[in-house]
Each structure stands twice: as structure tokens, then as C-alpha cells.
């Protein structure tokens, strides 16, 4: 039985690896994607173009403009002098933000009443606008403190002393890169397994496989092993690149990470084989794989928190293996989580894997009788 399974595994690996182009697409794109997306997928703002509209040419207002221009988040690309110049700059996307300082800014400040500052933001990308507002507020706060200190005003009764835990500098890359480990492992594994049975069915060789002495369980193992191998190896490559290239800290143990990765890849293989056993052609299998990948990446917490989703959709995410592995990967990388504390994430992935693999096996058998 072992020899039969081994032979099937060798055959499955050869089916993918003997073709140079297939081999290439298994190795190159994930690594290219890691590098590109590791840098691109960030909510940190850098060099956001803004224009200063300063109607109060005084030291106090120039100091405020200088604080924005000097911040790495913003770059001053224009300086305007009338209301009419605002709309063309924003409409043409030359600037994302206009900083408008009121004519009486300094006079108000000196009198002890609040100086007026207005921001106009391009809401076509409202997400970036929201983040830019946060950055602007931070700069305004330090400016306000500076002004109060300079004027010898009494400090506020109480001040916030904010510290971030686990990701001390709030670096988006530290959040995204562990997520990419899981995301790319899912895509590669799912595509490999989803197309494997469909390819044979299209070629007519799956019926031949079913009439061999191999039992469905053996076929299932033979079809699963290559996906497991490739998925775990690719994840490993990305883990290494994340630590060596992106300098994301690895604070937890590898055992905790790999226990999660193995269970995750198994659950994805189950989903892939289920899709594959239902599809008649490779095109249908690819569509099925896509219908799985798209919701699973969106509803996983990869880019936006699950806690922000409507309650009903939050329940749906419990069916998504990516949800659990993201907590495991980020936990191990950043929080130094131990295997014991991650058990609540492990068992749902194991359960998803067992159920999907069982269904796929049953589908194989049904095709026989």
C-alpha cells in the first residue's frame, strides 16, 4: 500500500514539475509577489503630496507648514495663494491634501483663542484620506504642545502616554509580511490541488486511476502529498525571506508556527480536492479555486480587521482557515506566542481539514459506483 501511494506521489509531482513553465510558476511568482507586496501593501503614508495655502505669512504659521513639509508622510509640491487654485490641484490629483491656514491665525493664537486651520482632502481614495487625517492630527497635536510651552501656558491636567506593544513602531510591514506567508501558501496549494483531479478528468485518466487497485483513501493521500510538500516549502521560503530581507522579528518558536502551517495547508488541500472532485474541466476547477480564494482573502483579517465586519459576516469567517493561520503567523512572529496558547486556532483548521478531505474522498468513491 505504501509503495502504491509513493508511486502516485511521484507521478503527481512529475505531472507538475516535468513541465518547465509549471515549475517556473511554482517558484518565481510567489517570491516576486512577496517582495513587491511586502513593500506595496502598506497603510503607512509616505510622500503624500500636499499644497500649502497659507494666508497668514508669520513665523507661527510658517512653523506649522514646515512641520508638515518636514514630515516623511507628506511632501509639499505646491504653494497656493487663492481659493480658486484649490479645486484644480485636487481634481487633477496633483495633491491629496490642501493645508489652509486662516488669515487671522497668528492674531487668534496671540489672543489665546484657537487658531483656525482647515484641511481639504481628496475623498476619491477615502481610505488614504482617513489615514492622512490621522497623521495630520498627530502633527497638529505636537504643534499645539510646542505653542503652549513657548507661550508658557499651563500644561493640560493629564496627558496620554501611548505605547504600542508587539509592534512598537507601528510598522505595517510587520503586520503584512507574516500575512503573506499564509496568503501565498494558500494560493499555491489550492491551485495545485484544485487542478490536479480536474486535469486528469479532462484527460480521461482519472477513470483509469479509479479502476486500479488503489483505494480512494490512497488516491486522496497521493493527491494531497505534493500540495503539502510544495505549500510548506514555499511558506518556509517566505518565512526565511521575511526574517532575512524584511527584518520582521521571529519571537516565537518554529514548532508553534509549523504546527499551524501544516494544519492550514492540509485544510486548504481538503478544500482544493473538494473543488477538484466537483469540477469537470480545469476551467471550472480554476473558477472554483478563485471563488474560494477571493472571499477567503477578503474575509480573513489579512488587510482589514474582522472585528469591523458586520456580525453575520464575522460568523462566516469561522469557516475560513486563513483566519486562523493569520493569528498563528502574527502571533508567532510578533507576539512570541507558544503552541499551547494557539490551540484555539489549531483545532478549527484540523476540523476543516478532516471534513473537506472526507468529502473529497467520498466524492471520489461516488464517481466509481
Amino acid at each position, binding site marked *: 500500500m505504501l509503495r502504491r501511494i509513493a508511486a502516485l506521489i511521484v507521478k503527481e509531482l512529475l505531472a507538475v514539475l516535468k513541465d518547465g*513553465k509549471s515549475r517556473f510558476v511554482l517558484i518565481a511568482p510567489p517570491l516576486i509577489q512577496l517582495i513587491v507586496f511586502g513593500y506595496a501593501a502598506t497603510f*503607512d503614508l509616505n510622500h503624500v503630496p500636499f499644497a500649502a495655502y497659507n494666508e497668514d505669512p508669520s513665523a507661527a504659521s510658517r512653523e506649522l507648514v514646515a512641520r508638515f513639509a518636514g514630515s516623511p508622510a507628506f511632501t509639499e509640491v505646491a504653494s497656493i495663494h487663492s481659493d480658486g487654485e484649490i479645486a484644480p490641484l485636487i481634481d487633477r490629483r496633483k495633491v491629496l491634501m490642501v493645508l489652509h491656514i486662516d488669515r487671522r491665525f497668528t492674531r487668534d493664537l496671540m489672543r489665546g483663542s484657537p487658531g483656525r486651520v*482647515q484641511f481639504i482632502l481628496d475623498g*476619491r*481614495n477615502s481610505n488614504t484620506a482617513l489615514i492622512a487625517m490621522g497623521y495630520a492630527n498627530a502633527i497638529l497635536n505636537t504643534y499645539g504642545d510646542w505653542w503652549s510651552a513657548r507661550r508658557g501656558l499651563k500644561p493640560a491636567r*493629564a496627558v496620554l502616554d501611548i505605547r504600542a506593544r508587539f509592534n512598537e513602531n507601528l510598522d505595517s510591514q510587520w503586520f503584512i509580511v507574516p500575512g503573506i506567508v499564509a496568503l501565498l501558501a494558500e494560493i499555491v496549494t489550492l491551485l495545485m490541488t484544485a487542478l490536479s483531479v480536474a486535469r486528469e478528468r479532462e484527460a480521461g485518466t482519472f477513470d483509469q486511476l479509479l479502476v486500479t487497485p488503489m483505494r480512494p483513501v490512497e488516491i486522496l493521500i497521493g493527491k494531497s502529498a505534493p500540495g503539502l510538500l510544495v505549500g510548506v516549502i514555499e511558506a518556509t521560503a517566505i518565512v526565511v525571506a521575511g526574517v532575512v530581507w524584511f527584518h520582521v522579528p521571529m519571537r516565537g518558536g518554529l514548532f508553534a508556527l509549523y504546527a499551524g502551517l501544516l494544519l492550514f495547508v492540509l485544510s486548504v488541500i481538503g478544500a482544493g480536492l473538494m473543488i477538484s472532485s466537483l469540477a469537470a474541466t480545469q476551467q471550472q476547477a480554476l473558477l472554483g479555486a*478563485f471563488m474560494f480564494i477571493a472571499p477567503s482573502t477578503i474575509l480573513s483579517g489579512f488587510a482589514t480587521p474582522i472585528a469591523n465586519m458586520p456580525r453575520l459576516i464575522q460568523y462566516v469567517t469561522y469557516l475560513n482557515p486563513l483566519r486562523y493561520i493569520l493569528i498563528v503567523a502574527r502571533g508567532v512572529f510578533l507576539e512570541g506566542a507558544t503552541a499551547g496558547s494557539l490551540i484555539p486556532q489549531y483545532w478549527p483548521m484540523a476540523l476543516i481539514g478532516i471534513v473537506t478531505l472526507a468529502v473529497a474522498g467520498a466524492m471520489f468513491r461516488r464517481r466509481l459506483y
Partner: protein
Amino acid sequence: MNARRWMRLRGLLRKESLQILRDPSSIAIAFVMPVVLLLLIGYGLSLDAKNVPLALVIENPNAESASFAAGFFQSPYFIPVRFGAVQDAEAAMRAREVDGIIWLRSNFTRQMLGAGAAPIGVIVNGVDANNARIVEGYLQQVWAGWLASYAAAHGIAFAEPLNVEFRVWFNPAVESADFLAPGLIALIMTLTGALLTAMVVAREWERGTMEALLVTPAAISEIIVSKLLPYFGLGMGGMALSVAVTTGLFHVPLRGSIWLLMAASAVFMLSALGMGLVISTFSKNQFAAGQIAITVAYMPAFMLSGFVFDIASMPAPIRVITYVVGARYFVAILQSLFLAGNVWPVVLPNMAALALMAAIFIAVARRLARKSLE
């Protein structure tokens, strides 16, 4: 001659159309997937944090600390939970039960009533850096509100040094669906155009029927047109459906002209189809074609198009790469047409870039198909 040419083309078009109609998965990619994706992203992607679980540790409860804590119980953004000791709160953060901790030490009131500037300890879980920053912003709002009301209640003169007003043009309520839905149309059309065409044509190469087609009297340009047209129709149909869902269900305004939207979509569709043809002719096998289409078409359209992530904030080498991503130009057009109107200085250059890309892809596909015959 011309009549014969037309007849050949009609025959080829009939074959392609039948092929689409007989395989339900093509129709599904064009019409079911857009709606599913729009619903998922419209309801699933949100950066607006609400009901953030927060641990409150107050070591010496009294009137001052209670008035501060009250702000968190009234805020719609937080669900405060009281903890006796900061160690318990940290354990809860480790277990992901709370996202942040507010810690008033036992000498808080003494410092506050004395010299002022009493530190309020705040620890946030920084794993999700963006979310942590949004939570910090909400915390500052609660804090500033408490400072002002405390000063008013105790007759202390207190003035914020600055009076700040934010105005978000085109999307005053900062609805994320308003900006995500137009970008999503670019993503969906990339899928129909590049992925579907790549798979279909790769299948013909895999089975050898492509070579059979190439040795018929039909010219290569006729074969290419016959491959492009039916999928062009499919993609535009999917686009129209997406626009209907976006404006009808999500109430996203369409402030620009619908005809301009159709024209821009048609040009983008051609570039996506051309890309699909190139991928399939290059790979000639469905597995590789599917993988390549997802890698060079779908993922960049998602990550490098400005659809979610801001292009200006990317490092320079990555910004250079975005110039060869067709979706980048299309997303810029879509966001302007939907939310701002017919902004010609945005629409025209981006449309020209798309037209150039379409021409290059189709020319390359033609060349590759010819070469593989010889």
C-alpha cells in the same frame, strides 16, 4: 474576397460563442463572480473600527478617575472592561480579548491636581499597525473631550490652541464602499478579461486545436478578433452589471458621464484581453496560464493599482512597476468618474496609456502566435 473573409470570421465567432454558452463556468466568471465579489468587499472590507474592547485599570478610584473613565463608556468606539491590576489586563491583551489598556496609576489624581500633566498610561496592541493608529486617534478624541468638559465643570480657563476642520471632497461621509466599489470594477474586469481568456486559449493550445485553427485559411488577425470579440462582450456585460450593483445597491454616485465610463471600460477590456492572449500563447498550458494570470493580472490589480493601497506611499522601484499595471490607469479613471465627474485631465492621459497597452499586448499576441507555428 471580403465576403469570404466575413464568412470565416462569422464561423469563428459562432464557435467561440457556442463554447462560452456551453460551459457555464465562463458565464459564472463574467456574471456571478462580479456580484459575489462586490457584495463581499462592499460589506467585508472596512477600516472603521467600532466597539474596540479596551481594558481599564484604575488603581485608585475616585471622582477624577471616574469622570475620565466615563468618557470611554459613552464613546461608540470602545467597549471598556475593568481590570484590577495591570498584569491581568496584559494577560487579556495577550489572549486577544482586549486591543488596548488604559492605566491610571495610584498617584494619578495627586499629580493631576498638583502640577498637571499627569501621565495616563496607554498600551495598544500594535500588531495591526493601521488599526492601532486608528484606535489611538479615537483615544485622543475621548481624552480631549474629557479635558474640555473637566475644565468647564471646574471653571478652569482652557483653550485648545488650534481649531481644526477637515473637509473630505467627493466623499464627505468617508464611506469606504464609495471608493472601493469603483476600484473593484477594475478588479472584476481584469479577471474576466485576462484570467478567462488565458484559460480558454491555453486549453486550445493544450489540446492542439489552436494549431488546427492556425492551419485553416483563416488569417491570424481573424482568429485573434474571433477570440477577442465574444469575451469582450462577456466582460462588458459583467461591467454593466457591476455598475448597476454599485449604484443601485451601494448607492455610490456616478457623477461623470456613463458614455465616458463605457468608453474607458472598453479600452481597458481590450488591454486585459490582450494580456490574457499573451499569457495563454506564452504558457500553452492551463495550469501555468492560470497561475500566471493570477500573478501578473489579478494580484497587481488588487495591490498595485491604488485600489486599496496608496501608490504615492510605495517605494520608488515599486512605483515604477505600477506604471505597467493597466488597472492603475483604470482605477484612476473610475474613481474620478464615479465620485468627481468628467475630470478630463485625469481621464484623457490614463485612457491614452490604456490604449497603448492594449495595442502592445495585441501586437505581441499576434507575433507569438505566428512564431509558434513556424
